[in-house]
């Protein structure tokens, strides 16, 4: 009797990572939290800019594009932070239980799953912020161009976006890590909100040498004018990369040892 042919399936080791990464990008873009964040930011920025343009045109008040864009960046970060936290914490935390069962019971390691989720949320949040910020800068440049000359600079705009994106990277990473280590997304979101807003508030009470988020955000208008120290910016980016990497390592190890 002929022996049946042995069918050996071929496996691509990195395909599970890409599958989770791509699916998470799509799922996040479809989520109501993401849509709310984008719509809220667009409407708030539009209303803010129209108001300032109205002041400029009707009352004849001189408006600095850098100041307007700096204020808008500040509003974007402070206003959108709560939703960014929800997006980050729910990346892994929101799938705990039966949905995670359906995914983690397949040929994917916890490392790959965590990394894919983390990277997908980073890409979504940072790229969305970058696109929105670019839109605000372009709108600010053209709307307030009729003043003597626009005080926005290209390098300043890039530096400001880079600085805020670096801070968002740290926030998203820690959010994903907290979501993967806590038992439920609600607990994770609450804890992270308390920590972020609590520490932010305490730092505003501290004297000048302490880095208060509010003071740093208020300085964005100077950065947008091109008045920034490249070394300080580089240090900020390096520090955020190190903090994110440390959090990521903690998340990978912690998640691979936890029950889902």
């Amino acid at each position, binding site marked *: 009797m002929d022996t049946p042919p042995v069918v050996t*399936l*071929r496996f691509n080791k990195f*395909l599970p990572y890409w599958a989770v990464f791509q699916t998470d990008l799509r799922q996040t873009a479809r989520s109501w939290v993401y849509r709310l964040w984008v719509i809220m930011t667009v409407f708030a920025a539009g209303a803010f800019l129209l108001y300032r343009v109205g002041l400029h045109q009707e009352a004849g008040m001189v408006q600095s594009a850098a100041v307007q864009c700096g204020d808008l960046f500040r509003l974007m970060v402070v206003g959108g932070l709560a939703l960014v936290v929800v997006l980050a914490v729910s990346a892994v935390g929101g799938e705990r239980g039966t949905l995670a*069962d*359906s995914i983690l*019971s397949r040929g994917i*390691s916890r490392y790959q799953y965590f990394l894919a989720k983390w990277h997908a949320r980073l890409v979504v949040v940072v790229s969305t912020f970058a696109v929105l910020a670019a839109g605000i800068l372009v709108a600010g440049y053209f709307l307030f161009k009729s003043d003597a000359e626009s005080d926005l600079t290209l390098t300043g705009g890039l530096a400001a976006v880079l600085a805020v994106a670096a801070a968002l990277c740290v926030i998203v990473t820690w959010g994903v890590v907290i979501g993967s280590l806590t038992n439920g997304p609600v607990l994770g979101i609450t804890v992270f909100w308390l920590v972020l807003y609590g520490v932010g508030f305490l730092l505003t009470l501290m004297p000048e040498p302490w880095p208060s988020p509010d003071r740093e955000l208020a300085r964005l208008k100077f950065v947008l004018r091109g008045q920034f120290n490249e070394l300080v910016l580089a240090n900020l980016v390096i520090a955020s990369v190190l903090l994110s990497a440390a959090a990521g390592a903690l998340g990978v190890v912690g998640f691979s040892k936890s*029950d*889902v």
Partner: protein
Amino acid sequence: MAGDSTELIVETAHLTKIYQNRQIALNDVSLTIEPGCVLGLLGPNGAGKTTFLRLILGLHRPTAGWAKVFGKVMHPNAADLRRRVGYIPTNPQFPKGMTPITYLDYIARLFGLPADVRKPKLATLIRAVDLLAHSGHSLSHFTPGMTARLAVAASLINEPDLLIWDEPTHGLDIEARRSMLELIKRLAADKTLILSSHNLSDVDEVCNHACVLNKGQMIFHGSLQDLKGRIRKNHYELDLDGEQKAITKVVGVLRALKDFTQVQLRHRRLEVKLGEETPNAALLAQMFQVLAEHKVTLITVRSVGMQTEQAYLDLVEKEEQRGFARLYAEAA
């Protein structure tokens, strides 16, 4: 099968899971599952069935002991071991906004299957589980039967050697349940299966081995025949035909015999319980002799209750009654 045919498919030793030092979900479970075995995992709610399955899938980490699958210790990062396992959770959940095609493609990519392998495979499976007409529909509108069929397809996409199905007939209508059981029988020909179920008739029909859990403790592990062999075969029902007077006389004669502990007549159905001292074959021969002497015709005779169900209930009941004697459990 991909591996060595003599290797154990699953092996656990002292497998224990305690959740947050509050709940003992599984207590010291040691068992082996050989290739070709169709194991029915039985137990009441909260017995630890799903915990056991999650431990051998690496979704949970054991508090003590270990679980080996295909001869290697299972852990959360053992993706290579899970590539040889097909799993259906109790209530399969699907990511939002997917269709059967996108879902199966996603699952196949999670197994690392390249496009030239996974695309033909998912098309074949969608056809096989009769979802061709719904292949472009959103999963959010699927009925429980369609969901179950899709979960079956997802569990088979990687051509697994071991199938772990947690209550696969849960929530299915009669027709869907029947075709699920037929599928299990067909798959049992060349795969090893672990089926968790509340439905003992399902287990009775498709499994050749059983494992009974109760409150986290394994109280039986062996062949289904062994499980059935534990019950007392002494309770029968007979449907009779003939004159009512003759049947009443038969009842009187049987009641007079000492080994017939209970004889009851309801219309023309006779229910008898036999004593354990005398072999049941001898007592049944005696009963048939009485029927013949009184010219009563026997239409049907059957053993009362489903054997597996009776054996299972007997086991659970005995376990409950053991109390502190559990501390001095007999060596296996």
